[in-house]
């Protein structure tokens, strides 16, 4: 419980920071350069740590190192989904198209990271579980979330660029985020047991594994920041030219 609160706290801080950044579009776009440099530096550190610091796990062998690329994608994808709702609320409240661009940018980058979770997970699961996929809580709910936000992107490409279409998409973004806890509970109820390793902190990771993992979290957060800022700029340029 305490742990869940800690995760929620970190998530809230990250969402607040990103919301503050996105509130001023010019500031968010300008930050792309800083974010890009930071992301590259942290990615280099992270990759070095994965190669040299992280041990080769005894039971699973070297494939266990997929962990360091799979796990950091998750919070970043969630961040993207929550920011979609933030952008939606911002748009419905302020009627400023820039909040709608925040929503669409974060949804797109969030779906990208969610796709990576869904791709790297099975690649790890095949040698370790001997199945590409099992229907378990984490896997199923991640897949459902992917469908929700892929549908959001569909909705965006298929609807016109009017304010009404923007308001509708904002509502859908909010619906999606409101559904996340229910999806978890429902999948848990339907499938019960889980094979997926629990949250990393609970397993008491040794420092040699924790360091590359934490570096991964920070590095991927910066990658998200960079891609989000660039996507926001593209959306703004597109809006200005149409």
């Amino acid at each position, binding site marked *: 419980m305490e742990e869940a609160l800690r995760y929620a706290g970190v998530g809230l801080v990250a969402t607040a920071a990103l919301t503050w950044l996105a509130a001023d579009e010019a500031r968010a776009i300008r930050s792309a350069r800083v974010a890009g440099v930071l992301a590259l530096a942290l990615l280099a550190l992270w990759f070095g740590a994965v190669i040299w610091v992280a041990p080769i796990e005894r039971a699973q062998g070297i494939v266990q190192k997929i962990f360091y690329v799979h796990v950091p994608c998750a919070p970043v994808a969630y961040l993207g989904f929550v920011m979609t709702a933030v952008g939606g609320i911002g748009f419905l409240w302020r009627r400023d198209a820039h909040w709608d661009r925040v929503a669409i940018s974060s949804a797109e980058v969030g779906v990208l990271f969610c796709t990576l979770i869904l791709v790297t997970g099975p690649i790890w699961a095949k040698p370790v579980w001997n199945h590409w996929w099992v229907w378990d809580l984490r896997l199923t709910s991640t897949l*459902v979330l992917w469908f*929700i936000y892929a549908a959001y992107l569909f*909705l965006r490409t*298929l609807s016109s660029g009017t304010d*009404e279409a923007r308001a509708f998409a904002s*509502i*859908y973004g909010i619906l999606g985020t409101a*559904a996340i806890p229910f999806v978890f509970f429902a*999948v848990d109820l339907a499938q019960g047991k889980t094979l997926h390793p629990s949250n990393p902190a609970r397993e008491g990771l040794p420092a040699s594994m924790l360091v590359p993992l934490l570096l991964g979290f920070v590095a991927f957060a910066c990658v998200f920041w960079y891609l989000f800022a660039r996507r926001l700029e593209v959306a703004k340029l597109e809006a200005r030219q149409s």
Partner: protein
Amino acid sequence: MNGPRVALAVLRKDLLVDLRSRDRLGHMLIFAALVVVLISIVLRTSAADARGALLPLLWIAFLFTSLLGLARSFQAETEDGAWTNLILVPVDRGWVFLGKAGANLLALLVVEAWTALLAVIFLDVDWTRAPGAALLAGVLGAIGLSTLGTLLSALSASARFREFLLPILLFPLILPVLVFAADITGEAIAGRALAERSAGALALYDWVFLLIGYLGFDSLVEA
């Protein structure tokens, strides 16, 4: 006009349209019968082990049937340009949404009762072991489906490929409703106590989405 009266007016209008033309409801009833018959034949229900999969399948049959009706729930408005008038009502537009969702709810309840009856006839499902719980699951499930369905049908009404967009939007979000409702009905026909956690979660889900629908519709601008 005040809010509830707007909702009632919208509801009455939609019901009248449904009753006059009768095709929306009629198509849904025939479709539901077809799906249940298909399930009965393909599953070979004499096999006792098919029972476990039966209720979720009934809920999915109900979902597909509802989809047909929901997809049309804003068709009249978008085709006749009445949509703008509907949004321009000078009161809480949230009440327009509630009226629309209410009309869909009544239609879905009819379809649901019909599906339950078909299940009794063709699949030997016994609802009488815990009728209260079965009824509760039916009502809560139908509220969830009509709320989300009405909302998403409005969102996709003006988009291209809307008949394909609606299920893509609806299915992932409706998953919790199906799971909770199937859980409650499953416990009910097994004659066990009410699945309280599922019922609570489903009621909360309905409530959250009704609220988002109401507030979301309310915030639509006069375009």
